[in-house]
């Protein structure tokens, strides 16, 4: 089976080549994987996500999504995308926000309605179909955005810090829901985050990036058993992986030798 996403020597420069946002990115994502991109601000993880979605053009390298060019994949509706802000349209109800990509893909009314009903159940918003976005809490808005991104059953879900603006409690609950949805739909997820714990909890692999220029420094497989639950966060292995990931993230900093030394004792 071909890779869901395949990146070969992808680079991106801004400001006429003066700022290198991404350099020599090589990454293969297999279908059904949950990959997190993590790194400090300016490491280009959001840029990389947008390159996969064909929302930004790479300056060099090759991007293959579902076995085709990123441009073709976007035109074919091969991925759904969720941003940090829910980006819901105020003039549409919850149901009509979810139906938007279906309308644009030319689905007829009964088919749309049936799918919207399914999606509303999937994200547990039954009863809120006729509400407007501004009547919902931030967490509920983000669930609508997820339902909308998945409504047309894309094989790939791109998520750019989708829970970054939410409080910790809501974020943990939505993490659990996202994993359930991921298991139900079998889609591939590419997930950008700032949170170490979130990356470990959700992912099958975590891609660690460093800034200036944005590069992949390490890829850490997460061998926590599936399905992951609230207890997962309390397992010893979870904390080991969190520590490993934190060290990988601080790998380039000056504090690193003293930390290593302290740990060695």
């Amino acid at each position, binding site marked *: 089976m071909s890779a869901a996403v395949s990146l070969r020597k992808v680079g991106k420069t801004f400001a006429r080549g003066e700022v290198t946002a991404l350099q020599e990115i090589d990454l293969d994502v297999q279908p059904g994987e949950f990959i997190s991109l993590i790194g400090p601000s300016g490491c280009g993880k959001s840029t990389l996500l*947008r390159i996969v*979605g064909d*929302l930004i053009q790479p300056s060099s390298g090759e991007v293959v999504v579902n076995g085709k060019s990123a441009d073709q994949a*976007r*035109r074919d*509706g091969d*991925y*759904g*995308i969720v*941003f940090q*802000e829910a*980006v819901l*349209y*105020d*003039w*549409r*109800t919850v149901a009509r926000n979810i139906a*938007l*990509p279906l309308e*644009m*893909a030319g689905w007829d009314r009964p088919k749309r309605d049936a799918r919207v009903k399914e999606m509303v159940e999937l994200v547990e918003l039954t009863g809120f179909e006729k509400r*407007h976005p*501004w009547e919902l809490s931030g967490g509920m808005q983000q669930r609508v955005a997820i339902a909308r991104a998945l409504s047309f059953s894309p094989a790939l879900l791109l998520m750019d810090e989708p829970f970054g603006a939410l409080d910790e409690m809501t974020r943990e609950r939505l993490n659990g829901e996202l994993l359930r949805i991921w298991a139900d739909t079998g889609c591939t997820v590419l997930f950008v985050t700032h949170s170490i714990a979130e990356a470990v909890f959700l992912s099958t692999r975590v891609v660690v990036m460093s800034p200036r220029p944005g590069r992949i420094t390490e890829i850490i497989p997460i061998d926590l058993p599936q399905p992951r639950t609230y207890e997962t966060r309390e397992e010893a292995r979870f904390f080991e992986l969190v520590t490993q990931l934190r060290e990988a993230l601080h790998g380039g900093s000056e504090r690193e030798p003293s930390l290593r030394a302290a740990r060695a004792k």
Partner: protein
Amino acid sequence: MSAIATPVAGERLLGRTMRGARSWLPAVGVLLLGLGLWEGLVAALNVQRFLLPPPSDIARTFWDERDALWSAGWYTFKEALGGFVIGCSAGIAVALVLARWRGLSSAIMPYAIAANAVPIIAFAPITNQWFGVLNPLSKMMIAAVLCFFPVLVNALRGLTSVHPSSIELMRSYAAGEVEIFRRVRIPNSLPFLFSALKVASVLAMIGAVVGEYFGGTQEALGVQIRNSAALFAFETAWAAILVASILGISFYLAIALLERLTMGWHPSARAAE
């Protein structure tokens, strides 16, 4: 479910009307108090009628000359409405063009914003000459120019103040420019557009009436106000001003109602719940 919903909705509507009436009471009280003071002070201080006629006299004239006044009001209102339609359509059309081709907008918008701050009504004598003093088109044009700039500036702001992620989202659905306009930019601009249309409705009435002050047919309200004042028929002038006010306020309220009907989705509609 609808069987339950209907009586509840009816009850809620009644409740809302009652609450609405109660919230209007203080304003109505102030109006009555103001009219009473006006009437009383004019009589007590023996104010000359050319300075300020009492409201009772204005009301009597308003009633006695109602046919002539309303026919003049209607004539002027048609000019205002014509100017409003011309000016607002042009403003919206130019805003759509400038939103599509942003390079153009950076060349043109500084002038549009500057023009918005110019007292355009000062051009009324000139448009009168251009289109003919007796031609209603001359009043429509000054009203149109008055409406044009605020509508252009606000509509453009609404069309362009779209969250960048909204556009990225549409592009992820392989949407082209036309579809982005139809589904995101235009709905996003509606709240901005309607506040401009409300301002424009007021400006259109001002443009038509003031344009008539600089000359027009005897049927026009502005001409009647000017002539009555010149002939010391102050009660008639005041009654004509009252007609202009009623028409202006009705025009404004009609636009506000249209706004409510098209934008029930808007967060501002929360206040109505």
